[in-house]
């Protein structure tokens, strides 16, 4: 039996599985970047508290640390696990490709996670219980450990876009996959972003400071941190765009919505304006304002940026060899990986998929719509919804009342040979083309309910036929009167 590594499909009709991953990942990035940035800020403040004998810096660290402990560490660590869970169900081979190449790097990051979690408790609860020098040492270790989690994950995230070095495809190995242009520039960009977030979220804590002179001092410190980090971050983003493959930029230009550029510019201006305003007039800094700014940056800044990164790597989802629909579309001799496309071309996607039930392995008049549904879920559901809502609904791509022949021609000409730049190549047997065309036409013209009904009828007819066949078999096995005598 010839099978490829394909899992069942999880299809989320309301928003799309890709968006579920996106929601969780964006929230995690907000929480984790703030945590790492704050850890570096704590190291600095704790050092100053020791050097200048300042208790108020340590009080600030304690308050900010407790806030982080409850919000970003709880939500951050769980949404971090959430990224694994959501990609596991939405893109098992995508996350599998990363896990199998970088398991030890993730395990190394885990060592730093453990240090981080114990460290944040110590930083918060030991203020006033240990001398300032010891607190400083704990904070410095904590700051470096937090940053270590960032540097490790960035290499893995970069691999999703493109392996560090082109030589990885031929030679394999962790180092060539991990380190590259994209890795370091992305690290610099994220480091700046995390400092911006630290300054913005820190405003929530500064807003609660009663001592006006100290409030002014901290507002200034965070303000300068925020302005410098935001400007450098914007510059790094431009550099980052230069570090990605040309086709990724082409995809970005074609695929991203028009509001992408302006929204990034507006968020930049808003962020810098916010820091200047609060530095000039610290009384404007109230916790609600700072909290709102954190949300604004999340929704208008981080979300488009992450969406762009996700869109740009299409049709690939990991390492430029796993397609977004989970099929391996390229040879990687360095890892002894072979493209799965030739096998699918030979035997069809239905026979190659390990979860295709027996009754769908060969297309016939009695299972055509259901086979089409199976193929659509396998090939398309990662990026397209079959309903009206959700991610890139399929019906938007086809005219009303399209017929099966036109649909089949489109599939044969565009999808099967892989003629759409940002979409995977999707090999199918001619019978499979007919099946998916029948399904997509039905969905497009008659809607989901009618298509589900048609599939139910196919199943009912098949079961009825099986019963009838069984009955025939029983009848044919009955001995005749003559034989009984």
């Amino acid at each position, binding site marked *: 039996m010839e099978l490829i*590594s394909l899992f069942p499909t999880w299809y989320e009709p309301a928003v799309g599985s890709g968006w579920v991953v996106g929601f969780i990942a964006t929230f995690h990035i907000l929480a984790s970047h703030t945590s790492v940035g704050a850890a570096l800020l704590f190291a600095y403040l704790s050092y100053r508290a020791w050097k200048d004998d300042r208790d108020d810096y340590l009080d600030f660290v304690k308050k900010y640390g407790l806030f982080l402990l409850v919000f970003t560490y709880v939500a951050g660590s769980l949404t971090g*696990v959430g990224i694994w869970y959501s990609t*596991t169900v939405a893109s098992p081979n995508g996350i599998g490709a990363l896990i199998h190449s970088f*398991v030890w790097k993730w395990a190394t990051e*885990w060592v730093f996670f453990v240090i981080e979690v114990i460290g944040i408790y110590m930083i918060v609860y*030991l203020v006033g219980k240990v001398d300032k020098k010891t607190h400083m040492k704990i904070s410095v270790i904590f700051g470096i*450990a937090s940053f270590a989690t960032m540097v490790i994950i960035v290499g893995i995230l970069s691999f999703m876009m493109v392996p560090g*070095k082109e030589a990885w495809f031929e030679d394999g190995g*962790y180092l060539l996959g991990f380190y590259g242009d994209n890795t370091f520039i992305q690290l610099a960009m994220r480091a700046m972003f995390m400092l911006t977030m630290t300054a913005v979220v820190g405003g929530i804590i500064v807003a609660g400071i009663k001592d006006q002179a100290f409030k002014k001092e901290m507002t200034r410190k965070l303000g300068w941190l925020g302005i410098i980090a935001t400007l450098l971050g914007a510059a790094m983003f431009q550099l980052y765009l230069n570090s990605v493959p040309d086709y990724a930029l082409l995809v970005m230009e074609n695929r991203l919505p028009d509001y992408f550029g302006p929204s990034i510019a507006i968020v930049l201006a808003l962020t810098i304006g916010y820091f200047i305003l609060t530095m000039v007039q610290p009384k404007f800094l109230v916790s609600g304002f700072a909290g709102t700014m954190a949300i604004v940056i999340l929704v208008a800044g981080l979300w488009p940026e992450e969406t762009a990164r996700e869109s740009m790597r299409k049709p690939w989802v990991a390492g430029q060899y796993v397609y977004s629909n989970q099929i391996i579309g390229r040879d990687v001799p360095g890892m002894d990986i072979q493209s799965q496309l030739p096998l699918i071309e030979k035997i069809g996607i239905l026979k190659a998929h390990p979860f295709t039930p027996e009754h769908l392995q060969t297309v016939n008049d009695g299972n055509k719509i259901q086979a089409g549904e199976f193929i659509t879920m396998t090939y398309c559901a990662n990026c397209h919804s079959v309903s009206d809502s959700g991610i890139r609904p399929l019906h938007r791509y086809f005219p009303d009342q399209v017929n099966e022949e036109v649909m089949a021609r489109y599939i044969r000409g565009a999808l099967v040979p892989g003629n759409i730049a940002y979409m995977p190549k999707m090999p199918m047997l001619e019978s499979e083309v007919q099946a998916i065309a029948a399904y997509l036409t039905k969905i497009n013209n008659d809607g989901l309910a009618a298509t589900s009904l048609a599939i139910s009828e196919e199943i009912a007819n098949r079961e009825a036929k099986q019963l009838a066949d069984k009955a025939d078999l029983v009848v044919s096995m009955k001995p005749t009167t003559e034989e009984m005598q």
Partner: protein
Amino acid sequence: MEVAQLTDMMYALRNPAGVPFYPIVFIALGVLTFAMHIFFVQLMLGTGAITAYGAFSNNPYWQRLASAMLEIAKVSVSVAIVIGVAPLLFVQVVYDPQWYTANVLSARWVIGFIVIMIMAYWLMYYYYFRNGKFGQGADKPKARWSIIASLAIFLLAGWIMHSLTSQMLHPELWQQWYMPNGAMDTTGSQLHANNPWRFAFFILIAIPVAGAMMVAYRRFKSVREDADHAYLNWTAELGKKWLKVGSLLVLIPYLGWMVTLPETAENFAGSIWSILPALGFIGLAVWSHLRLNDAKSICNYMVLAMAFIAVLLPSIGREVLRYDILNGFFGYNFFDYKVIIDWYSTLLFFGTFAVVGGAVLGYFLTIAWKVGQSKGVYVPSAAVDRAGTIAIWVISLWMVHFFVLGFWVWMQ
């Protein structure tokens, strides 16, 4: 589907990238870190249950104990989550065919798990912030519902994980779960498999684990000048009772689990791997009865290690059970995973774990320990202070190595 077809299917689902080191190492690390994770889960549940009981009790000792155990419960959740990352990583390395399939088939629950964990965790903090350090002569705790709700939601999260790990072991039912009655179900809205006995066993271990913590708590606090020995002795006596009764109590659901194992694991129940966990808990009860009579003895700390061993044994048994089902019945051997050795990243992990982890956590835990036993501001000795400096050097050198090596590779 025939067994041979299921075997082919599982082999096909393996990730073609292979693994960067021998599978046995990932399995061993998976077992060890799972045992650590579940130990802290049980500690969290046990101390959380004490917190909840103390919230409704009029006994001042119970209230004080509840307040102290809430601190442990909060930290235990954090530690359980962060340690839980490791077995979650390793399960994806060698059990990816089984784990990914089980998850995708219950995708909504997998996503829901994250949300409900955040809810449960925040509810625990909510209770903490509403009450602070209650039980020190303060009024009745407020928002007592929140600690109960927190525990209930944590149990639901546990049930989801229990169900997913059960689903891994039923490849014969995967197809049926994906296409019930012949129609495709891509919603992932069902939890398909469970064994309530197994779930009850892992949850009830919280009783002896919390008992061990109460005994160790007495020993830890009793050296302080301001120690209230009457209260601490009461706590330790209660802990001993929980240890002994709890260790024997868990044998009931354990037996239930062994009796209800699927047919695919028919040889496991009578094997040494199923008997050892039971012996472990009987041993813990006996050891606690014999060795915890002297309040100053080191055994009052060792009890935590003994409880951990008792948890480790079923963690090993659980792994052997997986092997029995997947290999013994279905012929799927996870030891023959394609290996493409990557020495650098392998050594990087073990080096970071031993050198960075050892230096930093040794320093952190020494400070935390000393602070817990000191009154007022703790100033470390020269040796402890030097350990801090060494830890900073070690972690800084790690960072230097990361960039130096990275830039070198980049420039090639």
